[in-house]
């Protein structure tokens, strides 16, 4: 039986929200097949992957810790993508934020919290902004495609990070491990109630909500939405493409930089060669799964954070390779993009051969 896609002629509101749900269901089914193929019981696999990690209090708190960078970067990316600026270099901006903040933190081992912490945080934001600003400059000055430049800047950032933690910033007392010294207490992100939940976990959803207000209520947010939905109408209204490109990239870069700052001054406590498991790339999935809406991004960030915990759990309890996390994320994005076709198209049974014109 053959089916074909037929344009609906308008966006389906049902599928705009139904598509992520369908994609998640299909992803779970596919993961069961993959678990079965790897010799693990499918139902137990899903349970281990998606439910067990959050069935304890400490599991829940690590979920929030993992979700914080995803939500922060994802909200910024959602803003960019609304404006048709395809920044996929969140990981690089995250690393540069961590380096700028972490570098300052290393230089201030005994500084007082009240002035050193905000300073280090600001430098973290500026680090991410600078890295994203390069992308904006390259796009506007040389018309360089931001997908390529932002991606390639990720690799440069990674190499700078590795060079610094194996070279100039390596901890002399660290037995030669590629890592810096631990940060002093004055430049460490506070955490709450003996859990691992830190300031960034609280700030991430608040920032996402603030971004939602920026998009909905500010003139800049309005301009971003117009340029994304109808670039000619933006030109008609006289909105400056250059200004909006700068704004979108600096905003998302700054958020990624802030996320990097929280990560190294909070849960990690030092600079290492592996400060990100690809948060910046996972945040791309978070942004799309959250329908490019800052509030949706909060929920999507939690789900994708779960995939990291699930990968760890599957490795420990089921002897499965930790790569299942990447597979889960990839499969989810694949189904999401596929299911999104239904927003603008409907599935119809293909008619038999075209009949004679009447």
């Amino acid at each position: 039986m053959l089916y074909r896609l037929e344009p609906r002629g308008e966006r389906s509101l049902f599928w705009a929200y139904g598509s992520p749900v369908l994609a998640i269901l299909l992803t779970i089914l596919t993961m069961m097949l993959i678990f079965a193929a790897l010799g693990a019981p499918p139902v137990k696999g899903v349970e281990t992957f998606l439910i067990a990690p959050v069935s304890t209090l400490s599991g829940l708190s690590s979920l929030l810790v993992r979700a914080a960078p995803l939500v922060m970067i994802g909200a910024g990316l959602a803003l960019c993508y609304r404006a048709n600026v395809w920044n996929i270099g969140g990981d690089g901006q995250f690393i540069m934020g961590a380096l700028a903040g972490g570098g300052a933190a290393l230089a201030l081992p005994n500084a007082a919290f009240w002035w050193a912490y905000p300073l280090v945080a600001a430098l973290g934001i500026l680090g991410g902004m600078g890295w994203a600003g390069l992308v904006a400059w390259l796009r506007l000055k040389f018309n360089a495609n931001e997908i390529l430049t932002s991606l390639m800047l990720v690799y440069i950032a990674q190499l700078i990070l590795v060079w610094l933690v194996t070279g100039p910033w390596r901890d002399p007392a660290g037995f030669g491990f590629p890592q810096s010294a631990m940060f002093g207490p004055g430049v460490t992100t506070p955490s709450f109630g003996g859990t691992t939940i830190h300031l960034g976990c609280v700030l991430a959803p608040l920032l996402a909500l603030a971004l939602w207000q920026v998009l909905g209520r500010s003139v800049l947010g309005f301009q971003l939405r117009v340029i994304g939905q109808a670039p000619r109408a933006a030109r008609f209204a006289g909105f400056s493409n250059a200004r909006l490109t700068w704004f979108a990239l600096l905003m998302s870069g700054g958020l990624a930089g802030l996320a990097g700052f929280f990560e190294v001054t909070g849960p990690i406590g030092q600079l290492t060669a592996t400060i990100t498991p690809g948060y910046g790339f996972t945040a791309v999935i978070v942004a799309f799964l959250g329908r490019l809406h800052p509030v949706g991004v909060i929920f999507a960030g939690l789900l994708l954070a779960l995939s990291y915990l699930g990968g760890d759990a599957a490795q420990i309890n089921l002897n499965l390779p930790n790569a299942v996390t990447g597979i889960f994320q990839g499969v989810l994005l694949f189904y999401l993009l596929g299911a999104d076709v239904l927003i603008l198209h409907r599935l119809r049974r293909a008619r038999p051969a075209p009949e004679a014109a009447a």
Partner: protein
Amino acid sequence: MDAELDKPGPDAPLLELRGIVKQFPGCLANDHVDLTIRKGEIHALLGENGAGKSTLVKIIYGVMKPDAGRILWNGQPAVIASPAQARALGIGMVFQHFSLFEALTVAENVALGLNSARQREGLERRIAEISARYGLPLAPERTVHDLSVGERQRIEIVRCLLQNPKLLIMDEPTSVLTPQEAQKLFVTLRRLRAEGCSILYISHKLEEVRALCETATIMRLGRVVAQCAPAEKSARELAELMIAAKLKEPDHNAKPAPAGPPRLVVNRLTIRSSQPFGTDLKDISFSVAGGEIFGIAGIAGNGQSELMDALSGETPAGSPANILLDGAPVGLERPAARRRRGGCFLPEERNGHGAVGPMTLAENGFLSAHVRGALQRFGLINARRTREFAARVIHAFDVRATGPQAEARSLSGGNLQKFLVGREVLQKPGVLVISQPTWGVDAGAAAAIYEALARLAATGTAIVLISQDLDEILLLCDRIAVIAAGRLSPAMPVQEASLETIGLLMGGAPEAQQDAAHALPA
């Protein structure tokens, strides 16, 4: 004559369309269209943009399927479900926009269009043969990148001729050619006709059609309005048929010409189009006084959208002095700055240009009125004022919508256009430039828009009305000029503008330029 058409066999016409209907959402593109093309004739399909020519041609070439109607090929019922099937029948088409690979040679490009290896045998020799026979000089080994537009068109024609077509469809072939290249093309087409090939020639250039074609089918608003021998008609008669069945003479009862200093001056405006097939603006000058409505007539694609973009500030002019708004040189200013000075603009395209479909009416009001309507404060949208502004437009222009929160795309074309015109008019502009304000709009909405424009002019606003609708221009305007191929004719008072002169100017006939010059008061 009809009885003769029904007869299959050697005397039957080559192609007959009977009662072709094609419905698009909100628009009947072809309304029971009949078309008969005889063997060995050059048949013109005349009509303004949006008359349904392209849809009809796409149906003939198998790109679209008609909703109803019959197609007879050599008197036999035929189904043309795809371009491949059309080519198999012997129908070839030269599109207005070419599909050639710049980096490949002429021969390689032609080979790509052929289906089997057998057809490609001795291709270079056959290309040379055909180009010699039909006067289409082409060097098979040259790279397309280096060729002129005329030469590129020859590749497309040779590509069609290799298939020995019985019917060749040419879509606006001279729109991209120089006059000299066009003359050479006509020689080729006449030679093809002499060999028995029929040609369906789509154009709106009247002189060209009169010189070349035996028969013309004239379309308007999806219907065939006339069939005639163009050589026997004057350009004026053809223009009348194309524009409306009968044009009413303008009833301008000696309205005093608005005096006073000009509010908008365009001075030697020359802009190269940024679009590959766009029209360059060449040395355009005119001025509009307060209270005056200045009409710019012309057939679509002759530089209207480029002129609109230049006036609104979407495209900067060459120098500040090219455009004066109330005396201030604004040629390099952005749209928002021009709005601040009192300029308001509404482009032809509603969806995605003048309005954003998925956004609400309130947001669409904000889109252009945020400067003059003071709808923003401290970088935030003033939601209350924005809503009130939209509500005021909705009320004043009787827009049928559920309210300021209705999405723009949920409105009918006429209602959305009323909203957009109202949005600009309520900003109390000093200069309003508006393009095609009643395109695809129902008669009631059109009347409301006309009334609003006339009232706005009476308050001292200078209005530029760019339109393909001559009725509309003659009804509203004090002075008019015609844009053709990016050049603007001298302006003439509407009382002194004869339909013949306008029609000829629209078709780009050179002698009309002089007529228009004579019409100018000394």
